């Protein structure tokens, strides 16, 4: 009896264990199934290099280049702000801050990660957007730059927490060695600790970027959603995620537009898959 229960439970937990693979395959399969029908009709090259996204005009145009550029611009902008700030904050929290202060700082960072993205988007709309419009004297404050700024705040918790783990896992002996040679604490941190923790920090940055690319609600609320290729970061843009979220509700189920959005989701899935795969490679490296 006991043996039967044992083997039944082992089978159950095994099935739950491989469910993750099943789900990844299902997501991939479903996006591909709907997307493939679209690619066959419209062409992959036309889809990716087309400069115009007019899904409801006649004939409809499904070029996602402006959406890719929009996502890219907002992501690069956010990374430029969030990466240096996040890594510096991680260094401060793990190496310099006194222990009591460290715990307080860490809980604030965790708190930031817990705030829902709609709330961040809403606060951005009522505060940063008018400030940007007035400071740079623009027709609208809903720009790629505003989006980058808000996304930077949302990526920082990821970058800080994971970098901090990497920095803290640097062996004590490294630091002791450097300090014993007469290096100051800062020299040790900058030349030894930072270098040893680098793979983990790169993984943290990739995960932060992955979060930014996939972010939807806040981006939809503050980047202006104009599907055109922007000339500067002070123009409205529309990202891939925001396009899916904003347009799916109005499509005819099973129609061309509906499938185009699945195809867009497929592109997004592939991009984040690559980003996460690279992050995983680096975090594997840092554990050795």
């Amino acid at each position, binding site marked *: 009896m006991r043996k039967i229960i044992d083997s039944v439970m082992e089978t159950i937990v095994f099935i*739950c264990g491989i*469910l993750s693979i099943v789900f990844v395959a299902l*997501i991939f399969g479903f996006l591909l199934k709907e997307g493939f029908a679209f690619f066959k009709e419209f062409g992959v090259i036309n889809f990716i290099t087309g400069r115009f996204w007019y899904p409801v005009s006649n004939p409809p145009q499904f070029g996602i280049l402006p959406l890719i550029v929009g996502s890219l611009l907002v992501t690069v902008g956010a990374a430029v702000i969030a990466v240096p*700030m996040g890594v*510096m904050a991680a260094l*401060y929290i793990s190496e310099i801050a006194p222990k009591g202060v460290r715990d307080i700082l860490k809980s604030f960072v965790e708190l930031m990660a817990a*705030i*829902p993205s*709609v709330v961040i988007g*809403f606060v951005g709309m009522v505060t940063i957007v008018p400030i940007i419009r007035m400071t740079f004297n623009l027709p609208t404050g809903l720009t790629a730059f505003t989006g980058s700024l808000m996304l930077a705040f949302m990526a920082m918790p990821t970058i800080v927490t994971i970098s901090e783990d990497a920095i803290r896992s640097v062996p004590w002996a490294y630091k002791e060695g450097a300090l014993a040679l007469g290096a100051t604490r800062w020299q040790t941190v900058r030349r030894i600790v930072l270098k040893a923790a680098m793979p983990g920090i790169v993984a943290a940055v990739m995960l932060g970027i992955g979060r930014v690319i996939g972010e939807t609600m806040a981006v939809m609320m503050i980047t202006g959603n104009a599907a055109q290729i922007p000339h500067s970061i002070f123009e409205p843009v529309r990202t891939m995620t925001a396009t899916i979220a904003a347009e799916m509700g109005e499509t005819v189920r099973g129609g061309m537009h509906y499938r185009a959005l699945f195809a867009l989701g497929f592109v997004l899935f592939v991009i984040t898959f690559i980003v996460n795969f690279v992050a995983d490679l680096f975090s594997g490296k840092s554990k050795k």
Partner: protein
Amino acid sequence: MFRLNPKLSQKLSYALLFCATIFVIIPVVFILFIIIKNGASAITWEFLTSMPRNGMRSGGILPAILGTLSIVSCAICITLPIGVSAAIYLNEYAKDNLLTRIIKLAIVNLAGVPSVVYGLFGLGIFVMFFKLGVSIIAGALTLSIMELPVIITTARGALNSVPYSFREASMSLGVSRWQTIRYIVLPNALPGILTGAILSIARISGETAPILFTAAAFYVPHLPGSIFDQVMALPYHLFIISTQIPNMPKNIIFGTALVLLMLVLSMSLIAIIARLYFRKRRKW
């Protein structure tokens, strides 16, 4: 060449790092301050317990609160048993082989899929393929798949922190493997698993994109009756009233944001306190 004295250089760098840390912290304080300051006046008993009126421009947000609670409780009931079982498999049974590595890679990727792509997936499989329609159950299933990697990772951490000697002691008494897991490992890992579950509840309460096309409705004139109903949800409601409805009174938007924020943060706070409490009580 001009070179800074190492002591001075250290001081300057520390100051710079400190400023960066402040820059990371400030948005949280700022967001909390703005929402609480402007939203507190809107929170009344009537706001929390009545239906929206006048095109949502007055009245309360009861259906949105109940909608979110029902979606989230359904989702956690689905994802928790599956996630914990998967964690048990990975931590207690799995050998270090190719299959295990693929499972781990799948979990990492599941964690990285954008929330809006989960929305698409949920629409394709649950709403259309299984014909569940836009409903609580379709949204809950979508959210449960999204939250699965988080549950697995935290549960695995909790199982892993139970000392190996506990298992050896139990097995050496002739207890079977599953009984060891059921009566020794799981009870000791329970606090960690529950903390992770509470954090997950907090996280999925605030998610909007996955329920956008699977569960959420613009306006439903009655309270949710069954799991096959379309419902209003707090985060979606906040999105609608802050972007789609003209002349929306500001204090209602801030009030809604405050209710959502309190729901999410109080959950997180409970989890953090529980974690500290259990860590102190731990005997090993």
